[in-house]
């Protein structure tokens, strides 16, 4: 089995459209005056400077998919009917995790308690979207390597806590990805800390299929 790959510094373009969408912007409906737009852009830039994206990725074989259970080599298993359906034609998966780091969370918490809630919500949305986009980056990375094998990742990925994949699955993903090595902790209730940290799972399929 391949080792866990760690990405100490992921550099991606700021996903502006997604940040605005997350904040409720509707094209052609929402009207933002120039001064407010400039303020929001400044905050997005600030968020970007406070975020230090780190990630981890792990390619591993699927031992078996049995009903709604995806069994992995070291005894770990994920239970989800939807995920099992998604991975039905895959013999391997890629697990991935990423974090925006602590500095952005410190800034959000400081602002959110009243110092500047407007900035806090922009920082929060930017951090959520940027860390999510870093999973796209990790998928691109694996796709680069898979290209020579004539294989690629599925277009979709699944995260614990969504659909019928329980949030508790995050504990196994945390362990397999050794997320402590990139500064992530996990709580009893399976919440990742720093808050802007994410994990996901996807499958590997033949190129072009």
């Amino acid at each position, binding site marked *: 089995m391949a080792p866990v790959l760690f990405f100490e510094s992921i550099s991606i373009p700021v996903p502006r459209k997604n940040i605005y969408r997350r904040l409720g912007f509707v094209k052609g409906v*929402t009207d933002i005056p120039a001064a407010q737009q400039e303020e929001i852009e400044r905050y997005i830039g600030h968020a970007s400077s406070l975020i230090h994206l780190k990630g981890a990725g792990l390619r591993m074989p699927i031992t078996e998919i049995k009903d709604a259970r995806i069994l992995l080599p070291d005894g770990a298993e994920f239970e989800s009917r939807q995920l099992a359906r998604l991975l039905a034609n895959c013999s391997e998966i890629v697990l991935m995790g990423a974090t925006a780091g602590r500095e952005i969370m410190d800034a959000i918490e400081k602002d959110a308690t009243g110092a500047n809630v*407007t900035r806090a*919500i922009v920082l929060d949305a930017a951090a959520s979207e940027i860390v999510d986009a870093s999973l796209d980056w990790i998928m691109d990375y694996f796709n680069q390597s898979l*290209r020579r094998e004539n294989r690629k990742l599925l277009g979709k990925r699944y995260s614990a806590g969504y659909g019928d994949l329980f949030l508790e699955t995050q504990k196994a993903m945390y362990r397999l990805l050794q997320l402590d090595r990139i500064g992530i902790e996990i709580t009893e209730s399976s919440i990742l800390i720093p808050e802007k940290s994410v994990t996901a799972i996807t499958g590997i399929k033949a190129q072009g299929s």
Partner: protein
Amino acid sequence: MDKKQKILNLLKRRILILDGATGTELQRQGMPSGVCPEVWCLENPAAIEDIHRAYQKAGADIIYTCAFGANRLKLGQYGFTNVKEINKQLVVLARRALGNRALIAGDISSTGHFVEPFGDLMFEEAVDIFKEQIRGLLAGGVDLFVIETMMDIQEARAALIAVKEITDHFTMVTMTYETNGYTLSGTDPVTALITLQSLGADAVGCNCSTGPEAMVKFIAAMKPHATVPLVAKPNAGMPRLSGKTTVYDMDPREFASWGKKLAAAGVNLIGGCCGTTPAHIAALKRASGRAPALAPVRKSISAVSSARAFKIFDEESPLLIIGERINPTGKKALQQELLDGKLNIVRQMARDQEAQGAALLDVNVGVHKIDELDTVKKVIRLLSTGTALPLVIDSPNMETIKAALRIYPGRALINSISGEKQKLKKLLPVAAKYGAMFILLPVTDNEIPETAARRKGIIRDIFRAARRFGFSKDDVVVDGLVMTVAANPGAVIETLKAIAWSANSFKCRTVLGLSNVSFGMPERKWMNTAFLAMTQAAGLTMAIANPADRELMKVKMAGDVFLQKDRDALSYIRHCSEHAKTDAAVAPAVKSSPDQDVSGAILEGNRDNIINLVDIALAAGMSPSGLVDDIMIPAINRAGELFDQRKYFLPQLIASAEAMKAALARVEPRLKREEGDRPGKGVIILATVKGDIHDIGKNIISLMLKNHGYTIIDLGKDVPAKAVIDSIRRSKPDVVGLSALMTTTMVNMEEVIGLARAGGYSCPFIAGGAVVTKAYAASIGAAYAKDGVEAVRVVEQLIKSFSKGRISK
């Protein structure tokens, strides 16, 4: 004639043809998926020999060995450890197939790990891993090396350094760029070119990821800056599924049709990557084999780079500012941080200077009793990822410079190399090895020359020594030497003469550290700014200065216009119009009444000016209660309506709420004086439930409710159920709001409500959070609100429906 010279001679005559894809051809020859391709080739030599021969017969001048993943880490994943032997045998197979009919390139590619500071593989370990592979390839007898399909510029550097530390073989380096023109790590082709050619790559280019169309653009972008031949090895278009087989969408004819365009863009070595076959290469050879080879257009380039950007020092460039702040001299907080091994201030200084318009960052970590080598490595790692600006390595310590240059993932500028004998002897070879530019400081062991005439002599001497290591005038930036005018009234005149001579006669780039000039004088910034303008006119290329100095930066921009280095004054006009826009934003467009101004400020979320506008409205005679009830509350309600209609999005709503909050705080004392304590609209307890740490949504609800006259008791996040019940007992709230973001913590809401009911508390609950739905809230006996605006409405309804008397036990 050695092999390297032979290749260089061939490149002068024509475009060399490289082979095509190996991976897809091996699959065609029956290689199953999941095996180690390198070892499969050794076990099935006829397959790879056939492929090599087919490409040679198709017209390829250079054939890559099938050693793409034959490094310790990749082979180790299949359980193989004999790296050197595997590499050697792969070359032996190629030679057996080809004889001397084609040149054999030892193929090196990624370990699969990103190298520090971008990944977990230590730089020296990466160099060591590549050296092991290179020794095997050399033992097999390769003619040249190719480092290919690199996504990480630092890994490409490690591989190139590994080759150069072992052998002088001709070495090509090709990075893989996405269709957006960047590697996954954010490096563009010109940045990679500047870094790799200065580090000693004999040819640079791109392979894989895209088809030839995108590569024409990459080659065209690189050509004007290339001092070495350029390489392109595109895929045969993009993959798609045909039945059960993956095919690439370009047939040989279409693929070959791009050969002439690549040649016209300036390519010197051309082949194919994924999806290409011997037929593609044969067609390419026919189409472009006779196209004229465009030699590199320059022999040297005055440019530096980081991992993600480059800066070219050409004559048309505006004056560049090297940010001077990352230097602990005279900065106690920075000194202490560096001694403690912390880098927060460094990170902040880098960010600030980049935002303030610095083009490069000077980095000096010299503090008494510090481990300078360790510190400079930490700082270089941090800044390599934390800023796109190229770095200037500033140290009097030669070992510090050496350590920094080795791990810096770009082409750095050294500050500085002087005429001191030891420095010349030790630093010039280091600068040459890593391809760095350097600041030439015209001082010697015995002399700090006071006159421009003396400086000229020393400049010539140092440059003469540098030329022996291959440096050209493009690689050197002359320091004009700044003496303090308080000690020597003629100092500035001499510096101006030295700069003018260096720029106009010696034809070199120039630099000055500005602030020395005013040492010991009052109001130093005016002297520094005047000095900048004068040296700028004398031909200065770059100045080491503090970009936070707004006067200095504005004078620089005006100077750029006067010297025709800001075409059509575009940068200057843009800078001025941006400031004008900000000024206009704070000034009211039309004359309006004071109460309209307050209303407008709340609607516009103008928190900066709201207090002033409230004061004006009150001074104009508005009563505090009238201002609140007739102006402010309708304004915030209007903001809520606009949010409901999605004409406002969340930042606008919250900015309005914050303006309202500031206005209320300003009016409240006068309101009290006017009518005593106003009866509150109700007491609301808010809490993010046990196990959950997400509370930004709860904070928004708190802000909105406060603005509508509610008293908020905010218990914070990760609040145990018992703490909520204790607060209910003490405060007798009108409503309790519970928040949770995760499915695992959402269930704790039910526990709180259950405990409250069991304890006899009948207060209404409202629930919210990303995963909470109206149905879930109803199932646990709570009301629901999807956002802050709705929460205000729901709370109002809940209070109407429940009387306080029913809450008490």
